Each structure stands twice: as structure tokens, then as C-alpha cells.
């Protein structure tokens, strides 16, 4: 399944939802606040309009009232009386106008002007009886001369700033008759604009403290231009302010309630969902990591579905744990079985490899040395062949039991394969290791092998390698060193216990330290590095080349390494099979290359130990396809190591059916029992150079060899004399009737690329040899 690009936890989702909710509520609140502000502004504008209308209506009423008063005064008989008989003008002005109810405010004053616009004299009689109102009202400063006629139209009025007081003047003409034919004079009404406004009017929308008329001292303003200079503010609506306050509080309360509810919801959500889901997730993760979650959680989840999941998960986990336990038991058993050798009960090679790796790692921290012991049963093949596999298995079991008994309590015995066992001893010294090895040999020698009907003594060879503490880099070489020591221990005359470094110093120098070892391993791993040289086998007496023997060389950094240098390594490392397979592959390649002239036979050296290997036989069968063009021969070497004669014989018979000829190589050298000649389908016997060289002597050995040659020839074997290097030996060989010879006298090994030339030369020189 393709993973999501990003993942969110349920807590993040919850937080996002709550944050979104709060943001939404905030937006709604902000929108409501914005709307409220708009409404408030609209109401403020309405208030201002209402205030303007209210103030306009109030001033209109004020001016209308003033106009009415002016009209009343203009038509009042007593007004006309004063314009004619102004003797008591002051009394009229200060008392009568108020007494008669025409002017009813202390802010209003009246004055009269004659028809020349001159203010009636203040010098008129003011002697009145007590009760004069004049003293109660301040005398305003009416202008001595009435302004121009433009302001004296009926109803004409204006405003003026007089010492900081805004006053309204209302002028009116006074006629002597109803038809206004005769102008008696003028009247002028004056009142304090603000005082009259405040005294007469009540305002609901106008903030009275804000009402101000912007007039400079002495400046006048026509009534109709009043609002161009009138400043005022609308009274703030308490209901509106209260509404705003209530709304703001409501919004804040709503936000707090939603926030609190969101927090509470989150806590509940966290308690009911997030934490249980986290716990379930952790449990699942824990289970995925192979650990056991805390299944014994006492508190059940409050959400039914989660509780169901938890129960299911825990039941599933319990089942898994049970299954896991069962599997672990089975695994332990399987692992134990996988690590145990079924025959002997000791650890097998797999356990060896695992434990060895761990031991190598642990050794870095050890403060004492370690030893590697390699055990190999002596002559086990012979025992197996002689007494059968059942007895052989019993021998191995007794050997394993004895070894386990001889080892220390914590030491482990591993069966590496066949009759080979190994152990590695921690915290030990070379002397202790050798002591343990000797105890092993003693216990085995004291073993009750006679009970099995085996009369021959059964023993083991032990190779020991030791690594001191503080040299962890060398511990990896212990198996190889023990192997070399084992090789040393196996050699005749040895005490069957060899310690690497003490008993194998020379061998290690020749086998391990030289470059040939490296060349060998590299050649086995790299096809083509093994180079075949071909040495001719000549038929007598005409010395005609009958076939060639393929001899292996290793070309390493441009130089040829000869068999004498690498074959001991092959033998010591038991690399016979790998080496022979590499040789077969190279011979196959040479034959396939066509560089070997058709009709030229080729003999191939094979170790007696590998002839019974299925892969070698398989390769030989594959190689048999060349027998139509080239006669092929197998030369068996190291016949002394053949343990399964019958099996080898079977394979050789098989190979003969595919036209391989069988030769026994190096006969006379080492252990080459005559029994093998009898049991194996050998046609050709190649006499070792150690025998042939005896022929040049004139002594009993030469006669024995000659008799033996004749006997073999009489038995029907085709004989080949190896190592013929002198003409005398050749003559002797020829006299004995040996059919074929091989040696430097007649031809050295030739590389493949010059083999064709060599064949041609041989054909060309054939007549001369014959002659």
C-alpha cells in the first residue's frame, strides 16, 4: 500500500477541529462585532441626524417664538405708545414687556428704535413705584443704531457674539396703524441664544454641553446660516451603549463558553478517544516490535468500540503470545535439533559456525588465551569399510562421548563432518589445551570398542592451535592452524597430537606463508589461472607419441607455479576435489578450443579421493564427449588414500564404458597396494620414477624392479615408465618390454599454444627416431 504523503495524529485532528471551532467562533464574534459596529455607527449617524433635526426644530421654534414675540410687540398698543411717548420707555422696556407676558424669559430683552433707527434714549424716566423689574434684569448692550434695512425685513434675525455670549436679535418694524402706512419706529428683540435654548428646550438627542456657535467676538451671522457655524454632538444613546456592552459581554461570554466547552470536549475527547487510541497504537507498535504490551491494564475504555478493540487486541495478543510461546518452544527444539548432530548428540557444524563467530567476538574481551582443538579419527574409513556403517556410526558415537567426557564442563564438542570433531577452549593455555587433548586420547584409547567387535585399536589425531590474550586479530586463524597441526599429527611417526607453532613450524612456513597458497586459492576461484601443459607419452620402440599427459600449472602474476609447490597445499587443505574439478574444467576448455590436434589422446591426473565424488564423475561424463576425437585416460594418484575401493571401482567401470582408460599413476611410490590393482579396473600402470630410476643401477633393486615389470606385463597391464631422463634408462625400459615411456629425455611438458607445433615436430622427427 502506498503510504500517505503526510499523516496526522488523532490529537492533532482534535486540536485542529477545536482550533477551527474557536477560529470560527472568533470569526462569527468578529463579524457580529463588526456588524454591531456598523449598526452602532448607523445609530450614531441616526443619532446625529436626529440631533440635527432636534436642534434644527428647537432653533426653529426658538426663532418662531422670537418672531411671534416680535410680532406681538409690533402690534402691542403699549409699544406704539412708547414710540410716541417714550417718557417711560425704560419702564416699558424693563417691566411692562415682562409684566404683560410678552417676554417671559430673563434671557430675552427688547428695545425700541425710532424711525431714524436710533435707540430710544435710556434717559427716559425710570421713576416708578416699587416693584420695578428693571433691577432684576441686566441691561443688554443694544446697538445705538439699528443695522441696515436688509436685516429688518419682517422676521429678520441674526446672531452675534457679544463678549462670548451668543445672542439672537430679532428686529421688527412698528407701524402706527394696521395698514402699516406710517412707520413709527423699530423694535429689536434680543435674547441669549444658548440660555434660551437650554431654558426652553429639552433635548433627547443633542449633547447640550457640546452645542457651541463658532462666532468670533463681534461677528454676526444671519439666522438662516446658523447651522453653518453651529457645532454640536449627538448624545450617546445609553441604550446603544448598553446594547454594545451587553453584546460585547455576550460575545466574550460566548467565546469563553465555547473555548471552555472546546477545552472540556478536548479533555473528554482525550480521555475517551485519544489516550485509549494512543495506548492501543503503542500496544500494536509494541506487538510489532515483538514485545508484549501491558495487557493487564485494569481500566477499561469508556468507548464501547474502543473497549471492543482493546479486548480483541488483547485477546489476539494473548493468542499471539501463546502461539509465540509455542513457536518459541518449537523453535528452541528445532534450533536445538538444527544445532545438534543426530548421530553423536554433540553440536553439529551449523552450531559450530554460529558459536565460533560468537566466540571470535567474545574473545576480544577475554583476558586469557584460547585454544582450538581439531579431532580426526584415525583409519575411520578402513573401519567403516571393514565393519560397516553401523559399526562406524557406533565408533563415532563412542568417540564423541569420550571427547565430551574429556572436555571441561562448559566446553562444547562439534562434529564438523564425517569423523572430524572440533572444540574451542576459552581461558586456557597451550599446556592446558594439550593436557585436555591427551585426556581425550586417553579416554578414547580406553574406550570399549572391543564390545563392538572391533579388534583394531581406534585412535584420534588432534591438531591444536592457540591464541594468546591480546591478539584477537589472530583468533580467526585458529581453525586453519589447527587443521595444519592436524595434518602434522596425521603424518607417520607423529604423536598424533600436534600443536601449531610447536610441531608445525616448518609446515606452516611452506604451506601457509608462501605465495603459492594464495595463488592456489585464487586459481581455484578464477577459471583460467590453472594452465595445462602437455607432456608426451611415447610408445616404444619407435618412440612415437601415443598421447599427452595434462600437467597442471598455476600462472600467478606472470610466473608459473609448478605442482611441487602447490600440490602439498592441496593435500594439506584437502582441496583435492576442488583442484581436480578445476583441472577437468581447464582440460575440457583446452579440448574444446581445438588447439589439441585431433587424434591426440590426453591423460588426466585425478586424486583417488575425488574419484568417488559425484561432481567429479559427473564432470568426467561430460568430458567424455571428446572421446570421439581424443582418447582420454584417467590417471589415479594417491591410491593409498582410497578407502571405498568398491565404490571407486564402480565409478571407474562407469567411466570405462564412456571410453575412458584407467591408469594407476606413480605406482611404486608411497602406498600403492597391489590389492588396488586387483580390485580396480586399471588398464595402465605408470611406474614411478623412483622405480624406473632403479633400472639404471646394477644391483638387486634393479633386478626386483625388472622382475616386477615383467610380472605386470605378464599380468596384462600396459606399463608406462615415468621419469625417463637418460638414454640408459630408456634402453633398459625398452629391454624390459615397457610399452610407453615418459620423461624429459623425450619431451618436456608443452603449453597448449605450442602443443600443435610440438605435435608437428614430433611427426616430422618420427622417421629419424625410428631410424
Amino acid at each position, binding site marked *: 500500500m502506498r503510504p500517505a504523503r503526510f499523516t496526522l495524529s488523532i490529537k492533532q485532528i482534535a486540536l485542529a477541529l477545536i482550533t477551527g471551532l474557536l477560529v470560527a467562533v472568533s470569526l462569527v464574534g468578529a463579524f457580529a462585532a463588526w456588524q454591531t459596529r456598523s449598526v452602532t455607527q448607523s445609530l450614531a449617524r441616526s443619532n446625529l441626524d436626529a440631533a440635527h433635526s432636534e436642534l434644527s426644530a428647537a432653533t426653529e421654534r426658538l426663532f418662531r417664538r422670537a418672531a411671534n414675540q416680535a410680532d406681538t410687540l409690533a402690534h*402691542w*398698543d*403699549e409699544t*406704539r*405708545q412708547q*414710540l*410716541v*411717548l417714550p*417718557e*417711560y420707555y425704560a*419702564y*416699558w422696556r424693563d417691566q*411692562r414687556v415682562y*409684566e*404683560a407676558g410678552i417676554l417671559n424669559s430673563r434671557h430675552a430683552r427688547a428695545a425700541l428704535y425710532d424711525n431714524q433707527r436710533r435707540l430710544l434714549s435710556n434717559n427716559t*424716566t425710570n*421713576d*416708578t*413705584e416699587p*416693584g420695578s423689574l428693571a433691577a432684576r434684569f441686566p441691561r443688554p448692550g443694544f446697538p445705538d443704531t439699528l443695522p441696515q434695512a436688509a436685516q429688518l425685513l419682517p422676521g429678520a434675525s441674526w446672531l452675534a457674539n457679544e463678549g462670548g455670549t451668543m445672542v439672537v436679535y430679532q428686529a421688527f418694524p412698528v407701524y*402706527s*396703524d*394696521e395698514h402699516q402706512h406710517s412707520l*413709527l419706529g423699530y423694535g429689536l428683540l434680543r435674547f441669549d441664544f444658548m440660555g434660551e435654548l437650554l431654558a426652553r428646550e429639552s433635548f433627547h438627542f443633542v449633547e447640550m454641553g457640546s452645542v457651541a456657535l463658532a462666532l468670533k467676538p463681534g461677528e454676526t451671522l444671519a439666522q438662516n446660516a446658523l447651522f453653518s457655524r453651529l457645532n454640536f454632538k449627538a448624545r450617546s444613546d445609553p441604550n446603544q451603549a448598553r446594547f454594545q456592552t451587553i453584546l460585547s459581554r455576550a460575545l466574550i461570554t460566548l467565546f469563553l463558553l465555547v473555548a471552555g466547552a472546546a477545552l472540556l470536549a478536548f479533555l473528554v475527547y482525550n480521555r475517551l478517544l485519544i489516550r485509549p487510541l494512543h495506548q492501543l497504537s503503542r500496544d500494536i507498535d509494541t506487538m510489532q516490535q515483538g514485545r508484549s504490551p501491558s495487557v493487564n491494564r485494569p481500566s477499561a475504555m469508556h468507548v464501547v468500540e474502543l473497549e471492543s478493540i482493546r479486548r480483541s487486541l488483547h485477546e489476539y495478543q494473548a493468542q499471539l503470545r501463546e502461539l509465540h510461546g509455542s513457536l518459541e518452544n518449537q523453535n528452541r527444539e528445532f534450533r536445538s535439533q538444527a544445532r545438534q548432530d543426530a548421530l553423536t548428540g554433540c553440536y553439529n557444524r551449523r552450531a559450530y559456525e554460529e558459536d565460533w563467530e560468537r566466540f571470535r567476538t567474545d574473545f576480544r574481551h577475554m583476558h586469557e588465551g584460547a585454544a582450538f582443538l581439531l579431532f580426526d579419527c584415525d583409519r575411520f574409513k578402513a573401519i567403516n569399510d571393514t565393519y560397516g556403517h553401523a559399526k562406524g556410526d557406533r565408533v563415532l558415537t563412542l568417540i564423541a562421548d569420550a571427547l565430551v567426557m574429556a572436555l571441561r564442563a562448559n566446553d562444547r564438542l562439534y562434529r564438523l563432518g564425517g569423523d572430524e570433531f572440533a572444540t574451542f577452549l576459552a581461558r586456557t593455555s597451550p599446556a592446558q589445551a594439550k593436557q585436555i587433548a591427551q585426556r581425550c586420547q586417553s579416554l578414547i584409547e580406553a574406550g570399549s570398542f572391543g564390545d563392538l567387535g572391533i579388534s583394531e585399536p581406534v585412535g584420534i589425531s588432534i591438531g591444536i592451535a592457540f591464541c594468546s590474550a591480546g591478539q584477537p586479530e589472530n583468533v580467526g586463524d585458529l581453525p586453519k592452524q589447527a587443521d595444519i597441526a592436524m595434518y602434522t599429527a596425521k603424518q607417520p611417526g607423529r604423536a598424533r597430537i600436534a600443536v601449531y607453532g610447536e610441531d608445525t613450524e616448518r609446515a606452516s612456513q611452506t604451506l601457509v606463508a608462501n605465495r603459492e597458497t594464495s595463488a592456489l586459492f585464487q586459481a581455484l576461484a578464477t577459471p583460467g589461472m590453472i594452465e595445462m601443459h602437455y607432456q608426451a607419452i611415447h610408445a616404444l620402440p619407435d618412440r612415437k607419441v601415443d598421447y599427452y599427459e595434462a600437467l597442471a600449472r598455476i600462472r600467478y602474476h606472470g610466473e608459473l607455479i609448478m605442482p611441487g609447490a602447490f600440490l602439498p597445499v592441496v593435500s594439506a587443505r584437502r582441496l583435492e576435489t576442488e583442484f581436480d574439478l578445476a583441472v577437468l574444467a581447464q582440460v575440457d576448455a583446452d579440448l574444446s578450443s581445438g588447439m589439441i590436434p585431433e587424434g591426440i589422446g590426453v591423460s588426466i591426473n585425478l586424486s583417488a579421493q575425488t574419484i568417488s565424488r559425484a561432481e567429479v564423475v559427473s564432470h568426467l561424463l561430460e568430458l567424455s564427449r571428446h572421446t570421439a576425437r581424443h582418447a582420454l585416460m584417467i590417471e589415479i594418484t594417491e591410491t593409498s588414500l582410497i578407502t571405498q575401493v568398491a565404490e571407486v571401482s564402480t565409478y571407474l567401470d562407469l567411466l570405462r564404458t564412456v571410453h575412458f582408460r584407467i591408469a594407476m599413476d606413480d605406482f611404486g611410490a608411497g602406498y600403492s597396494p597391489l590389492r588396488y590393482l586387483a580390485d580396480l579396473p586399471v588398464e595402465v600402470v605408470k611406474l614411478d620414477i623412483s622405480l624406473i630410476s632403479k633400472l639404471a643401477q646394477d644391483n638387486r633393486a634393479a633386478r626386483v624392479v625388472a622382475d616386477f615389470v615383467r610380472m605386470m606385463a605378464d599380468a596384462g597391464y600396459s606399463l608406462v615408465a615415468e621419469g625417463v631422463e637418460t638414454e640408459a634408462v630408456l634402453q633398459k625400459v625398452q629391454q624390459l618390454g615397457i610399452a610407453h615411456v615418459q620423461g624429459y629425455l623425450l619431451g618436456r611438458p608443452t603449453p597448449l599454444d605450442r602443443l600443435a607445433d610440438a605435435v608437428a615436430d614430433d611427426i616430422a622427427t618420427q622417421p629419424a627416431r625410428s631410424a
Partner: protein
Amino acid sequence: MIPMRLILLCLLLWFASATQAAVVYQDMRPGIRASASYQVGEDRDKPAVLLLHGFLQTREFPTVATLAGGLHDAGYTVLSPTLSLNIPARSQSLACEAIHKHSLDEDTEEIARWVSWLKKQGHRSIVLLGHSFGSMQLLAYLGGRPDPAVKAYIGASLIEAQIGPVDRRALIGQLETRARTAPRTLVTHPLSFCRKYTSTPRDLLSYVRWDQARTLDALHRSPVTGWLIMGDADNLLGHNWLAALRHLGSQIVVVPGANHFMDGEHEFDLLEHTLVFLRGLSEPSR
């Protein structure tokens, strides 16, 4: 309930007066123009009636206006002046508290001017008809040098210049003193129905002198035939005023139930008694 006949009569009189009355003016003194309603009667042979309103009133006073209308309807020429009281084109009743810069002499002078005006209009027989204080002012005029064209006098609800419960003699003395010492000083004193009548000492004095005795004397000395129409429910009249008038032997008609203003249905009584008197005047001339 007001009789239907009375309502119709009122409407008729109002309509007639509204359609036929003319306002005439005379400059009494410099700057002082006085007006009068002049209703020419159908019968030029009938005497013209100069109808004078009461104290501080105008010719629009209901009793006077109604009476004028009735007389005009009856074929009499009626001149109803409004005394100027030294107010140009006075058209309103003058408040008691107003500055009364007028005197009885100026009132009689204006009466004389209107009598002269009537004569200029061709009326050779003039009957003076006054109501309340106007009746007293007409007597003052008659006590002077009345025009010969004035043939008779009718005083309705004749009353003296009442000054309240003060000693008239002492008041007169005070006013005379003030008139000499501070003639321009305004004084306030009850006069007639005014409790605070504001005037100069001299002007006030001109009215205060007319007590019941002087009024009776003027009535007694009147050079023309006199006729009084009084109401027996007139509360404004002084004690024994009606008895004094009767005692004087004046021709007097007392309308039962009528008050000082002869309002209501007593306006008709006033009119009828007036017409009766006027018709009585016409007979000898024929």
C-alpha cells in the same frame, strides 16, 4: 337655554355691523391717532349716537358693540370711538399696569373731537351714550362746553371713578403733592376695576376727583336730557349709588337682574330701553 330669537338677532347684528361699519381716524395729538367705528343709519333724520366704551376698553367691548349694532339696525347712525388714551391707533384694551399717560381732560377732548367730527358729517342731533366709566366721561364732557348738537345723554351703568377703600381726599392730596414735587413719577393706585393702575400723579388725579358726588353733580348739571339705564344686579356700583341716582330725580331705568355689563339677554333690555329713549327724543323734534 338661549332663545333662538336671540341667536338669530346676534347673527343679524354681527353681519350688519360687519358689512356696513367703517373705521374713521382722527389725529388727536401729535402722533396720537384715534379711531372710531362709524355706522351710518338708514334714517338720517334720527339723531346720531356717539357710543363710548367703558374704562380702558375699546369699542369692541361686547356690550358696546352689541348696542352699537342694535342701534344701527334700528336706523340710527352710530359712532363708536375708541379713546386713544394717548396710544396711537389703540385697538386693544389697555392693561391696568400699563403706563397710563392719559387724563380725563384728554378723554373729554377726544369726545369733543368726535362730536365735531359727527357734525362735520352732517349730524345736527347727537345723542351721547356711554357705558360704565364712559358714561362718567361723557358727563365730564357735558360738564365742560358741550357742542350744541349734543341733544341728549344716556348713561348705562353709570359709575364714578372708584379708588378702593382709601380716603379719596387724602389720596387727592397725596397726588396733588406728587404732581407738584415729582410730576413724572409714575404712581400705582387702584382705580375703577384696576387694583394697580399706573399713571402720573396728575393724570391719575384727573380721574380720582370724579367721585360719586362729582358725578351726581355733573349729572345734575347736565345741559341735555339725561337718561340712565342701570342694572339692579350691578355689583360694581357703590353703596346706595342707585338710590342716590333716583334721589337726584334722574330718568332712570333699572333693569332687573342686569349686572354692570348688561350682558346676556340684558343687552336687549339695554338696547330696548335705549331705543325707547331715542324714540322719545325724536317725537318733539317732529
